[in-house]
């Protein structure tokens, strides 16, 4: 058995120091609660927001007027999609501008163009613009600095690998110290826990380069840890069966598509989308946000490839786009283009649709950000009934952290390290290190990807069915058994990756269980055995969870 360090104790434990986690931690600390962030890498550069972002969904009455529902409609029809409980979206919008004010005060430049906030991009022509354009290149450093200033304790290179529940409530977490070559365990006792582990990537083969699992649009170190860990202790998930696929340049998978200011064209010059024939900094071509299956369609029907063409964009808007890419954290792309002579004023860059990943699907939260497990909260990309990307993570992180901090004092701190669950999980993970030779974690990760791609594929042009999903669940269970019996790791880093791979197996199983129950076709969840989109399910969400080892599902009405 790997060694255990002395247990740590805190009032509020935040799992993952991304945008949601750091904002949750600051809000928690402001209530007076002792607050700790356990981070897999280093909060200054971890997660999908590592090097920046440039758009923040926000309701700003001064610019948008007094009717919040007009902005709610735009939010639901934008890139963040429709899988929201409306009452959560409304609370997010109500509080969003205050978060923007805080970020501005802390040192993230939310007003890069003058004295007031400006809204640009990710918008339909003639409609209100809800995405505040900002310069987020230093967002992680600023939030880290602010968290420390507020008294938050940040422990880097300490990924949480399991949650500990005692007497029906959260009691803490088991973490893995990966700061040295030899891994060790640390139990963190906590009165409340906030999960904020980001998107789940590496679940499906990378669409651009299938042999290269880390060529992902979002951070490849984010692997659905929150969904998996919470699933294992019985938390409810929603919308996991609804696939999401991002789009962007080919073959270098990268988010930030709408920072590009151009229009999408077929090889014959015809426009791909119906929205604009000339892009500006204010209204680009929203095709990529809301109809990104088009990039797959044009490949499979032979009419492609599809390109982004920025050559008709005004020179001042091209310069603006370059600055926007730096704010968005795309310095790698900017450098690459400079080094290779790729010039957007002359060249058209092919775009593609990336593989499915999990964003805005997962943990069901209530209006305060609490999950179905008392004391366990979630904020950010791994929440299943609300999504607004970085703005959503920031605002709901703030709400969840504030609620967790304010209610922590009423809970007792339990000796989480005595839970039999800790011993069981530690024994499993230790066996990978103790086994002298065997399977590498990468074999298991690629095996997860090939099962998901064959048996739980996402549209367009790929179908699911009861027989395929049932086979997929059987094969995933076989894989899990084989992986547990065969994985061998040489160091802490590889153990972390092996545990991520087990988390991905849980994510895959949740997707397949939920996809089996959704007996209809909707979005990119396309069933060959249920081709109809059932209007009766339009305002319902599918909950899925485990109870005493049995998978349960239940349809519920959306919360309006």
């Amino acid at each position, binding site marked *: 058995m790997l060694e255990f360090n002395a247990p740590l104790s805190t009032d509020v434990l935040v799992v993952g120091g991304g945008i949601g986690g750091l904002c949750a931690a600051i809000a928690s600390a402001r209530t007076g609660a002792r607050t700790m962030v356990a981070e*897999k*890498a*280093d909060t*200054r*550069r*971890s*997660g999908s927001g*590592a*090097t920046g972002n440039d758009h923040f969904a926000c309701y700003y009455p001064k610019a948008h007027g007094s009717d919040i529902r007009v902005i709610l409609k735009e939010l639901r029809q934008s890139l963040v999609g429709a899988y929201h409980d409306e009452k959560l979206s409304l609370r997010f919008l109500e509080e969003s501008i205050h978060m923007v004010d805080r970020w501005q005060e802390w040192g993230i430049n939310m007003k890069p163009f003058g004295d007031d906030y400006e809204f640009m991009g990710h918008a339909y022509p003639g409609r209100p613009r809800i995405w505040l354009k900002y310069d987020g290149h230093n967002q992680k450093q600023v939030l880290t600095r602010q968290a420390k200033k507020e008294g938050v304790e940040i422990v*880097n*290179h300490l990924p949480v690998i399991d949650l500990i529940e005692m007497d029906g409530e959260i009691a803490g977490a088991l973490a893995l110290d*990966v700061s040295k*070559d030899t891994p060790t365990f640390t139990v963190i006792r906590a009165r409340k826990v906030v999960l904020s582990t980001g998107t789940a990537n590496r679940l499906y083969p990378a669409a*651009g*380069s299938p*042999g*290269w699992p*880390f*060529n*992902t649009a979002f*951070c*490849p*170190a984010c692997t659905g840890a929150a969904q998996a860990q919470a699933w294992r202790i019985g938390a409810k998930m929603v919308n996991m069966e609804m696939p999401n696929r991002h789009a962007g*340049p*080919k*073959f*270098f998978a990268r988010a930030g598509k709408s920072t590009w200011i151009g229009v999408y*064209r*077929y*090889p*014959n*010059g015809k426009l791909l989308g119906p929205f604009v024939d000339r892009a500006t900094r204010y209204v680009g071509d929203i095709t990529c946000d809301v109809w990104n299956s088009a990039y797959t369609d044009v490949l499979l029907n032979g009419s492609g*490839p599809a*390109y982004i*063409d*920025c*050559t008709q964009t005004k020179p001042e808007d091209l310069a603006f786009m370059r600055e926007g890419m730096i704010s968005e*954290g795309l*310095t*790698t*792309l900017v*450098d*690459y*283009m400079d080094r*290779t002579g*790729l010039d957007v004023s*002359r*060249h*058209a*860059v*092919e775009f593609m649709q990336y593989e499915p990943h999990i964003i805005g699907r997962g943990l069901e939260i209530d209006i305060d950000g609490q999950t179905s497990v008392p004391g366990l909260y979630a904020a950010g990309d791994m929440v299943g009934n609300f999504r607004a990307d970085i703005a959503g993570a920031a605002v709901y992180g703030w709400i969840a952290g504030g609620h967790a901090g304010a209610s922590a004092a009423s809970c007792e701190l339990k000796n989480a390290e005595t839970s039999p669950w800790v011993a069981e999980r530690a024994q499993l993970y230790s066996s990978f290190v103790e086994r002298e030779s065997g399977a590498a974690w990468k074999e298991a990760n690629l095996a997860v990807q090939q099962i998901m791609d064959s048996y739980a594929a996402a549209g367009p042009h790929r179908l699911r069915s009861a027989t395929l999903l049932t086979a997929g669940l059987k094969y995933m269970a076989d894989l899990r058994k084989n992986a547990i019996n065969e994985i061998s790791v040489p160091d802490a*880093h590889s153990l*972390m*990756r092996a545990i991520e791979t087990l988390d991905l197996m849980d994510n895959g199983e949740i997707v397949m269980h939920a996809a089996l129950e959704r007996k209809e076709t909707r979005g990119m969840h396309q069933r060959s055995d249920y081709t109809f989109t059932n209007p009766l399910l339009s305002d319902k969400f599918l909950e899925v969870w485990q109870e005493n080892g049995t998978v349960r599902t239940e349809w519920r009405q959306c919360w309006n």
Partner: protein
Amino acid sequence: MPPVIDPSKCVGCGTCADICNSNIFVFDRSRDKMPQVKFPEECWHCDSCVLDCPKGAITLRIPLAFTLLHVDAGSLKPQEAKS
């Protein structure tokens, strides 16, 4: 493989190894003069190490499989029918 550290510029501060979000470096301050890129194929190419290196000692080499596919925009027009 990405990233590439220039040993003539690296001062062994370990910033890159600390901040990498995919933990691809190893660096033992008591033993190593400079960080080693131990898991290059796990690089996300996010540029954090390039941006944060105080000596500008790191460049990212982009793998061939990540090439940005592009054409001359002037070629995006109806193809002339062949006689």
